[in-house]
């Protein structure tokens, strides 16, 4: 077993799990009043207006920090920011060093 796996979360490396937790905490902070139990990694954040346009520049910066690379806003396509799962898959590099899923 790789050393960076967290006990009990054997399917995701620690760095990725930490990034996911940071992203989730940030969403809850911006969502203002949203019950944490009501936020899953598949909750549609833009469609349900949990995140609004005013939050987006900060979200880009956060994902760049978590993902370790610059996001070219001209390359953003619809759907990449649908929910936490989608953002993790598209922008956060897995701890094994492989590329984020395109």
């Amino acid at each position: 077993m790789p050393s960076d796996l967290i006990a009990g979360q054997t399917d995701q490396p620690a760095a990725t799990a930490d990034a996911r937790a940071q992203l989730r905490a940030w969403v809850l902070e911006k969502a203002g009043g949203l019950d944490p139990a009501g936020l899953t990694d598949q909750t549609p954040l833009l469609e349900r207006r949990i995140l609004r346009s005013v939050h987006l520049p900060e979200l880009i910066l956060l994902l760049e920090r978590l993902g370790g690379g610059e996001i070219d806003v001209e390359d953003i396509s619809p759907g990449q920011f649908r929910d936490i799962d989608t953002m993790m898959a598209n922008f956060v590099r897995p701890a094994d060093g492989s590329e984020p899923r395109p």
Partner: protein
Amino acid sequence: MTARLSGVGLQWHASGQSSLHGPLLDLAERLDEAFALLADRIWRAQAERHPATLPAAALQRLDYLYSFPHQATFPMRLDRAEANLEAFRSGPMVGLDGVLALTELAAPLDVLTPAACYHLYHGHEGEQLGGPLFLTTRNTCFRQEAAYEPLRRQWSFTMREIVCLGTGSEAAAFLENAHLAVDRLLKGVGLPVEWQAATDPFFNPRSDPRYLMQRMQPVKREAVYGGDLAIASANLHHEHFGDAFSIARDGGPAHSACMAFGIERWLFAVVDQHGTDPAAWPDPIEAAEAAAAAQEDS
């Protein structure tokens, strides 16, 4: 193309604006009448007419000046103090280079209309809507650009808009119907277009929340003629204007959507597609009548 256009009624100005007369002016009026006919027949939209300027304070609530400072045009006025007006008159007033030699200016409070529909949201501020509200208006709009091209990209141009204020589903249904109606109209006047997702020309897109939202959740589609000329656009605003102007529907901020037509661009497309003989031009009013009738039947 400019020479061909001038033969049918275009006079082009170095300022990036056009004057129309003869066949082109007649076609411009008939096109606008066709758009207004769709608005009336399909949605019974209330027609409104508004001034050439909007209060800067109203636009500020939309973050317009933050997003589009490069496009805004501000009307200037001299301070009305007699001494100031005398000082202006005693100067050259206009230099040899054509530049105004202004003295003290009055406090600038207004912006020349950048989009016809902004007046509608401002005009219905604070209303509680009991059902969807359909509106239509036409205005001369001003957008400063780096370069201008006759009828295709102008400092001032004519925009007709049809707007729906309502719930999210009412706004979405309006846009779907409007899309159908415009497609029927386009077919009737023989203009081939491709509908494409689009974004507005924000000043600094990376730092602009509204641009990012447009990329992440497309809200704007344009009817593009000839590969690069958007002649109509369908826009979903969510609660942006309802929020900014406290327009309520169904217990929350009203959603809105608009269909916008750039009349000069339609002129270009018609002449480009059908030639410079006005006898070969389609009748937009007849096409709009047919489009509205088809919409009523469906």
